[in-house]
């Protein structure tokens, strides 16, 4: 009790010089440790952590970008493949049409040629037939008429003229009708 009263009677605001020195030394030691070790170590850890996080983010971003690029490329390829397919289909269609038209043309030409040939052959055969027929009918008629008329018709030139005239008369009427059938 007495010590308490004694202490209370001192002015509590008056510092003890030794205590001030001790506090200063103690604080200086702590500050030294903080400057030399504690703060640098904590700051380094913080910086490393920030770097690690930012590095991870950057890496993820790069991967994302790469994936985007691959997807774009794939889409582009798909698009170009589609265009290519369309082009090929279009080409095939035109080609087909062309081939078809070609074949049609060729068939037409062929059929026209065949018809033409047939016409020519028919005409040739007909004229051949006419010629041979004319000759045969002529000689037959002359043989027949000479038998009937006698010598008078043995002259060749004369008889031929007679036969020709007869035949052309013949052709004009009933043969025409026969040819039309």
């Amino acid at each position, binding site marked *: 009790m007495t*010590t*308490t009263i004694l*202490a*209370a009677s001192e002015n*509590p*605001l*008056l*510092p*003890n*010089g*030794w*205590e*001030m020195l*001790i*506090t*200063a*030394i*103690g*604080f200086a*030691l*702590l*500050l030294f*440790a*903080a*400057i030399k*070790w*504690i*703060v640098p*170590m*904590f*700051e*380094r*850890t913080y910086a*490393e*952590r920030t770097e*690690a996080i930012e590095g991870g983010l950057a890496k993820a971003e790069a991967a994302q970008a790469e994936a985007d690029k691959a997807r774009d490329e794939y889409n582009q390829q798909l698009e170009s493949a589609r265009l290519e397919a369309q082009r090929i289909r279009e080409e095939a269609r035109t080609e087909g049409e062309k081939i078809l038209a070609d074949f049609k043309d060729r068939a037409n030409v062929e059929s026209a040629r065949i018809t033409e040939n047939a016409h020519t052959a028919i005409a040739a055969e007909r004229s051949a037939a006419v010629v041979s027929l004319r000759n045969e009918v002529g000689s037959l008629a002359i043989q027949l008429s000479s038998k009937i008329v006698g010598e008078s018709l043995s002259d060749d030139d004369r008889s031929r003229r007679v036969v020709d005239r007869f035949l052309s008369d013949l052709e004009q009427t009933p043969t025409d009708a026969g040819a039309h059938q």
Partner: protein
Amino acid sequence: MHLPPFFEIGSFEFAKHTVLIFLSVVLIAGFFMWAIRKQALVPAKGQFLGEMGYGFVRNSLGRDIIGEKEFRPWIPLLFSFFFFILVNNLFGSIPVLQLPTLSHPGSAYVLAGIAYISWVFIGIKRHGFGHFMAKMTMPPDVPKALYVFLIPIEFISNLIIRPVTHALRVFATMFAGHMAIMVAASLLGFLLSDVGGLGGILGGAGALLLGIFIYFLEVLIQVLQAYIFTLLFAVYVDGALQEGH
């Protein structure tokens, strides 16, 4: 009030106060260096705790007040102030130790003095002596005539009262808290031994409750004072660094 010193060398008394100061330095430096020894990117429990304490001072007292650009050089001082005062204050609430070091005025004067010298020094270094003085004593946007009164008032308030209150605030709260606990303890002892009987026991129980209440109030104040001291220091540094008035 004070225990007798353990030993004396001349006028130097090697007492509990001295032991506690050095104990606090060993505890703080030891804990934080142990906590960060691995510098792991993913912290374990110890490192997490250390980072929580360090990050609190660094971010909410340093970065948020002094600013992103300038706070880094001040981290060691802020860190040392906060944890030195915190641990030394809490010694007042630890049984057996039971002495908040800053209840001895010399310690508070030294810490406030270091803070004062630091911010005044950086202010003068940054702005030059004349501009710094103008910054401290001539608030802007005031009619010129008022400077006759304002310059002395601002000078006294910013450059003289500021460090004094900085020191006395922490000293006085620690001193008063220490006294309050002692009063509660003396009351308990007096009621139990000198009064005795039923009244003494009942009164003693009341005094015990009072003492426990004051104890927890003291813990709160001890933490708060460490925070306030460091916060004010950061505000002073920020004021000294800022451009303009």
